């Protein structure tokens, strides 16, 4: 399942553009894809940066822990954290059951919109998953 309206990274994260910036930067929501949640296994703990923290593109910013393993989460774009999904503190399994909805991870205000054009579209991501 790869929704058409989202952007993707090769690291199996999705990015939804919530608003384009005029005075402020663009705001995006990020999460992990259905493919990623399946490959990672049952998520039992999610560690995310707090609102106000600055993220460098590609930096490790959090952790997803499954029954098997701890895996790093990477910032797909540079920006600052507006919100983290606090529901995941009590219900980390939402990442598995609804990866594109209730299982979202972070809301980020982007440093600049230019990075968006480097992301994959649904077709590009589909090609990567299929390969």
């Amino acid at each position, binding site marked *: 399942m790869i929704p058409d309206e989202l952007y993707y990274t090769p*690291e*199996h994260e999705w990015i939804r553009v919530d608003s384009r910036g005029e005075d402020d930067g663009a705001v995006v929501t990020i999460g*992990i894809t259905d*493919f*990623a949640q*399946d*490959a*990672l*296994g*049952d998520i*039992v*703990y999610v560690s995310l940066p707090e609102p106000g923290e600055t993220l460098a593109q590609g930096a*490790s910013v959090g952790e997803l*822990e*499954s*029954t*098997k*393993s*701890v*895996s*790093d989460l990477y910032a797909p774009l540079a920006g600052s954290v507006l919100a983290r999904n606090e529901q995941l503190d009590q219900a980390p399994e939402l990442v598995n059951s609804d990866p594109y909805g209730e299982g979202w991870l972070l809301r980020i205000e982007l440093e600049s919109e230019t990075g968006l054009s480097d992301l994959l579209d649904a077709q590009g991501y589909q090609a990567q998953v299929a390969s």
Partner: protein
Amino acid sequence: MQVQRIGSVDYQAAWDQQRQLHARVTAGELDAAVLLLEHPPVYTAGKRTEAHERPSDGTPVVDVDRGGKITFHGPGQLVGYPIVRLPAHVYVVDYVRRVEEALIAACADLDLRCGRVRGRSGVWLAAEAGRPERKVAAIGVRVARGVTMHGFSLNADVDLAWYDAIVPCGIADAGVTSLSAELGRRVSVDEAADLVEPHLRRLLGWEPYDRTADVPIAKPVGIPVLSPPTG
């Protein structure tokens, strides 16, 4: 894949060695490496370990950045740290199943039938003759930059009394066992390493493989409340 047997090494020293290998594999200087070793006695705890699962007698615990809860390492236990690049960094389930499969295959070489239990990691023996299902090998992994670290521990002839002080892996109603306890003869760490190594090489080569069937969890024995009086 480079497999190094490094004997008995202190937990922290081996952790440093893992990090050095991890950096080299991440940088592409090294294809893949596996450390096979033993630790002097130590308890290690993943972040989710709860207070009541820790040793009740105040024995020190090393807090670590792997998945899973608390476990024990010590003499008589084969510890393996595969430092390998995953085909995609999210392929964690596939990787852990492959490590489990290598351990299951090594047990099968000793005519010991083991498998996975759904929702738990590690390698298990099925419940039988009044004994609960019990774990012979534990797994706890970290994936960073698409490269694994930490790994597995397989009880060869470890003193199982070490586990009495903790709630291993946070599972209170299951047992821990060793190859020696199950087979009724001493299985050394070296013998276990000789068996595990070729299976690890095969399974971490990412070729397709057939998965061993899961071990069923025994149903709890209930006392029927409304059973008719007998006799």
